[in-house]
């Protein structure tokens, strides 16, 4: 197992190099001149522009630019944004915020999604099952920015249950955005759990568990749920990456100073080093969670063994 994990982590290195180069190239290919845009309505003098371009290597060809960036990276230097702020500082400030948001969202998904899915799955065609089916279809059909604004307006502004925006109030500020961020995946988790559980309940070994005189709770909770969780775990693992990128919209709506807002701002101002730094981090998180999911498989199902 340890060797398997080590091999997977080694494989991540070429993936990260490739991904960072691709992202770098895409920012390079963006139309427009980031330096001229810096000045906005007041043009910057050509001399200053020239100096800035030189400082950020913007006149070099793509490969040279990337080479210089990667060289800095190897020395632990993630570069700076156009105002001279180190990308490492940006990450240090935004990562904890987004991680908190993603964890709150993941908790919503896992807890409410699983409960709804299990209750619907054990009583198919019941009222609750239909309720879950209808409500999840509804949630899946609503774009996240609509849900976000409606939740913000009703629960934040009108009813005043949650802070309208920002995370200055601490943990409370994460609840509503966390829920909005989770809503779509929560619906998927509920449906996935429902289907998987209903399917597994038809297995012969469930019949065996009943024949042993076990209680219904034990039949479902012990003998069925563990087998049913494999597809759900796959989804949750892959989804954590999606939660990070989905945070772009949610963080925007609720004005949360996280990674999503930082990367969105950096794309607008074409600050390549910032975009590459953050998105490569996303890629790394994705790889890590995929590995974690594969390791969890083996824990859930003894038939799966890695050499």
């Amino acid at each position: 197992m340890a060797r398997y994990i080590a091999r997977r982590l080694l494989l991540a290195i070429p993936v990260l190099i490739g991904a960072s180069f691709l992202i770098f190239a895409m920012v390079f290919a963006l139309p427009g001149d980031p330096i001229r845009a810096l000045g906005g309505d007041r043009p910057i003098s050509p001399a200053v522009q020239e100096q800035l371009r030189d400082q950020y290597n913007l006149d070099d060809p793509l490969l040279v630019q990337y080479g210089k960036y990667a060289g800095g990276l190897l020395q632990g230097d993630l570069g700076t944004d156009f105002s001279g702020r180190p990308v490492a500082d940006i990450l240090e400030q935004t990562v904890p915020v987004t991680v908190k948001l993603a964890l709150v969202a993941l908790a919503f998904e896992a807890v409410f999604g699983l409960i709804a899915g299990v209750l619907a799955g054990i009583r198919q065609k019941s009222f609750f099952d239909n309720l879950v089916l209808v409500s999840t279809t509804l949630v899946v059909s609503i774009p996240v920015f609509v849900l976000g604004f409606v939740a913000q307006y009703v629960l934040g502004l009108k009813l005043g249950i949650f802070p309208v925006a920002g995370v200055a109030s601490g943990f409370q500020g994460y609840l509503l955005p966390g829920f909005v961020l989770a809503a779509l995946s929560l619906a998927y988790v509920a449906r996935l759990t429902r289907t998987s559980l209903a399917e597994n309940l038809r297995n012969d070994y469930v019949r065996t568990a009943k024949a042993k005189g076990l209680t219904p709770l034990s039949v479902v909770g012990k003998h069925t749920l563990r087998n049913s969780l494999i597809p759900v775990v796959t989804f949750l693992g892959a989804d954590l990456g999606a939660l990070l990128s989905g945070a772009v919209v949610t963080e925007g709506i609720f004005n949360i100073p996280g990674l999503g807002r930082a990367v969105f701002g950096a794309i607008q101002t074409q600050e390549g080093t910032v975009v590459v730094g953050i998105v490569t981090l996303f890629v790394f998180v994705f790889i890590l969670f995929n590995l974690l999911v594969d390791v969890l498989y083996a824990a859930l199902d003894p038939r799966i063994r890695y050499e």
Partner: protein
Amino acid sequence: MTSTVPQAVPAPKPTVTGGAPLLEVDDLSVEFRTDYGVVKAVNGISYTLAAGETLAILGESGCGKSVSAQTIMGILDSPPGFVTHGEIRFRGEDLLKMSAKQQRDIRGEEISIVFQDALSSLNPVFTVGAQIGEMFRRHRGASRKDAKASAIELMDKVRIPSAKERVNDYPHQFSGGMRQRVMIAMAIALDPAVLIADEPTTALDVTVQAQIMDLLAELQRETGMGLILITHDLGVVGEIADRIAVMYAGRIVETGATDAVFTAPAMPYTEGLMASIARVDQKGQRLNPIVGAPPNLAMLPPGCEFAPRCPRATDLCVAERPPLREIVPGRRSACHYAEEVLGA
């Protein structure tokens, strides 16, 4: 008695009072309410089982033999399955009228079952030791350690080699025959009064089949449990069954002592079954299958269900369903012409 497996002494359980049978199935009917109509899977079957007796329930796929077994176990999927009529009396008490908890306490403790396909019937994510030991944990409140010790003893008893090392293995690490032994170990763990074996050897190699049947017969001799053997394998029946009940289209169409039924069937369907076996002394000749297919259980005919396939069928058979009646002492047949069939 939490940590040790009952040894080879007849079960120290309350004996049957007043000579009443251990298990009585009385006019049991089960139907499945599906989107395509009501399927009458079991239609008024009755039989009894005494301690130490082996009753074989014989019939082709879909005749209701497994459904009746699941109903006795109380593990019928409901919906769609419903018991519409009848009683299942265990030691004189109707299982169907008991509370869910009472039924659960009997399940596995007093009545247990061995299923056909051990691979799919064992949970793939738990060790065999945990699955066998679960019986002791659920019904006897045994500790994990004691349950495991009991599991090892049982695995020894059903002759799984090096039980001590294999107790922590998972079902997929065993061969088909060994897996069925694990199933049997689980079923006999608490020394049940009744064991239902639902086609226990169908999924196995022929050589392994014989070993498993020998094991079942041996365990029965040791413990004195009543055994209901559900099968479509006539060879298996002939070897270990005391009595036979032949099922067709959800009904019992013939019952009697094994030898008597084998030598002289009293129902054309049984006759057809006997004639369809491949026999060494008829080598080179064609097999004699029963032509046609069983009736659709959602649309049963008013007369004898076997009439459309029966070489002896008359107008009476099509019009009127023959009841199961005693033709000679100990023999029952559901055929208008049972005496003629028997005499033939």
